[in-house]
């Protein structure tokens, strides 16, 4: 009896197949830009795009972990602000810069853990739980600074790199984004933890019955999201030399947009970090090009909204077609009367 055909597809081809929509849109866009907005490809501008994509990209990688479980993290923008403010204040209290930055990261991770505890143990819906921490964290950063920006002086090599420096001619933040992306991609591919995220997003009950410690995995996922947002907060502070309590107010939406454009399903269980990287780059390219051709910031938002809808529609259609191609004609068993199975109530 025939059991299998063909070789296992390589990782590259598999990745391309899964992310063809976001990668395809990205390449198409780049081609269009090449034709119509040649100034885009001038070196300094490209570096700018990299820099612009970095913060949202880092947050979006963390967000991908949460969304894969079927959750959402609305608090990332507020975490960005709190961790930036914390870092700035600790520096002003005389703490060494690296230590202050580490504390900023910890604050982010800690708020993430609170999110995870609420979602996993208290069974609060992720949307509500992270909305609550978002509001509270916003309040916290305003309270810490009495509403104004917290300036700090002094910098070191690490902070310069995180804020505005270069590594091998590439913007520091972009390099950090790449490093985080690679870590994220590797974690999802090579750690059982990564697989557990997909399992939980696919079916919480099946994951539990498979022995997955679902609560622990969920808490860690939110902690990672918080940590990434915290990193973005420290980076923002490093660039501006200020802990701004109002920074990052829209980054939760931008990050979710990047994840969704990247093909990760908001229902969980499907997607990955590769798509998210391209999603974040795509967003940065679009806003950069619009800047270049002089579209007003207000109109840019409208365009962005349209891009989200178009990207998600295309991705959804692609996924449906792929699934249909591989689904055998509906097998008899789907229709057989099933013993024990409750008959579906028919609306009278």
């Amino acid at each position, binding site marked *: 009896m025939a059991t299998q055909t063909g070789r296992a*597809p390589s990782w590259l081809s598999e990745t391309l197949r899964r992310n063809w929509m976001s990668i395809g849109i990205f390449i198409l866009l780049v081609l269009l830009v090449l034709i119509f907005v040649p100034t885009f490809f001038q070196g300094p501008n490209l570096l700018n795009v990299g820099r612009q994509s970095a913060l949202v990209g880092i947050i979006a990688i963390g967000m991908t972990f949460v969304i894969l479980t079927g959750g959402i993290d609305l608090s990332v923008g507020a975490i960005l602000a709190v961790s930036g403010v914390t870092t700035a204040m600790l520096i002003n209290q005389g703490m060494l810069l690296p230590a202050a930055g580490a504390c900023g990261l910890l604050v982010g991770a800690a708020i993430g853990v609170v999110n995870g505890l609420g979602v996993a143990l208290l069974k609060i819906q992720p949307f509500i739980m992270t909305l609550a921490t978002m509001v509270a964290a916003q309040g916290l950063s305003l309270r810490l600074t009495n509403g104004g920006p917290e300036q700090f002086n002094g910098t070191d090599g690490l902070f310069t790199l995180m804020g505005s420096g270069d590594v091998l001619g590439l913007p520091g933040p972009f390099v950090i984004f790449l490093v985080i992306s690679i870590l994220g991609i590797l974690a999802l591919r090579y750690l*059982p933890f990564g*697989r557990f995220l997909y399992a939980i997003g696919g079916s919480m*009950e099946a994951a539990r019955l*498979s*022995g997955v410690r679902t609560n622990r995995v969920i808490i860690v996922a939110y902690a990672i999201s918080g940590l990434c947002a915290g990193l973005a907060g420290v980076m923002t502070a490093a660039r501006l030399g200020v802990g701004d309590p109002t920074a990052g107010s829209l980054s939760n939406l931008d990050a979710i947009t990047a994840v969704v454009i990247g093909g990760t399903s908001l229902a969980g269980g499907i997607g990955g970090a590769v798509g998210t990287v391209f999603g974040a780059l795509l967003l940065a390219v679009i806003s950069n090009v619009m800047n270049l051709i002089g579209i007003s910031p207000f109109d840019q938002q409208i365009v962005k909204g349209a891009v989200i809808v178009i990207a998600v529609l295309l991705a959804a259609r692609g996924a449906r077609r792929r699934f249909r191609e*591989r689904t055998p004609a509906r097998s008899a*068993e789907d229709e057989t009367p099933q013993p024990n199975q*409750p008959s579906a109530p*028919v609306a009278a």
Partner: protein
Amino acid sequence: MATRLEMRGVSKHFLGVQALRDVSFTLEAGQVLALIGENGAGKSTLIRALSGAHLPDEGEILMDGSPVKIAKPADAEALGIATVYQELNLFPDLTVVENLVFNRYPGKGLIDWKKARREARDFLHTLGLTVDVERRVRELSVAEKQMLEIAKALERNVRVLILDEPTAVLGGEDVDQLLDLVRGLKERGVSVIFVSHRLEEVFGLADGYVVLKDGVVTGTGKIAETNHDQLVSKMVGREFVRGERTVNATLGEPVLEVENLNRAGVLFDISFSVRAGEVVGVAGLRGAGRTELARAIYGADPITSGTVRLKQKVVRVSGPLSAIQAGIGLVPEERKTQGLFTALSSAANISLVGMVKRKEKTMNPGNEVAKARDYVRKLRIKMPSPTVPVGTLSGGNQQKVVLAKWLDADVDVLILDEPTRGIDIGAKQEIYQLIHDLCAQGLAIIVISSELPEVLALSNRVLVMHQGRIAAELDGSTATEEEIMSHAVGGK
């Protein structure tokens, strides 16, 4: 008495599976007709054909002597046929009155709630129900909800009421109240089709009966002219062919021992053991506690008391993880939502439990696929590649993936809950063969199944459950379907 509803030669098949074959019966005005049969005998299909969910392939349905076509639920409603399913179709967060008048609001433009409440109260009163119409449905007892559902159906001038196992989830007194309600309806001239597994009720309530077996009517007539044993033998239908049995004759030491297992209100005082190389079948009707027993041993649901020992060592039954680590595996009843991750590849599905059990620190997708290929070959799983989502495979191949997952996790005890549900005949035989092979390797296996021939063909011993207890333990080599069914319905 006038004939209200008649089915003549109705057949229905789904892609090769004959769900109903040449079904004929009549239902008189004001008659209660008991529809009985084993799980999967075709009762649900028959009900669906009458309620507009399935259009029969052949045969005709007559209402008051004239042929009718019931193609959609609205057709059934127009004919005055209403169906009350076991899972209720109420809005739990709306009040009783809001549910009752849903979409038929009194008043012009604005809803006249005063009038609605008054009418609802009066209406329920005529049925002998005294629920506060302002209460939320969520707060009602199961019995009250059931009655409300029936009341909702009756509001639409019902002439044929179909009740799908209305008593399966009710306790003693509630059952009596419901049966009284049905008797009251009968007096008002409503014809009732009453699906039940409990033969005592059937004898206390029904006028006539229809027995289904494998989609065929194996008996119909007046209740007064039959008895318990006759009905059971009609439900079972045919003699079981002994030759199909394939059980392991040489058994080892007891591997799994369950002692005085209790789960409040669900399982009572369950004790049994399974030896190495043995298959213990668990039979019983829907709601008898079979799945609950499997989940309790596996730690998926909390138990109230009792001990589970694996190879003489007590297992802390605290969750699936400790069961897995002790060496117990569960192939759950709901394959697509509990047994598999349909969006993940077969390779990922197969490796997941073993990965958890062995506490692996990293995973290697390449090795994973190679390992999956091994199982694909060994279990003869048909799939284009182990990397495609498992949800795209057929039911039989999906189930083999679930089995491969447990093989990879290296278990001593495997509990299979309805292992061949929704699987075609060929794949079924292969699953049986696999179960047999696993036994030969010394695994202890528990097979829960609603298909008695399957239980008898596979099991060394058969436990029959009834209302959360083990009602009988039978020797698989001598037990008959009649014997099992008789214990399962609570007789003798």
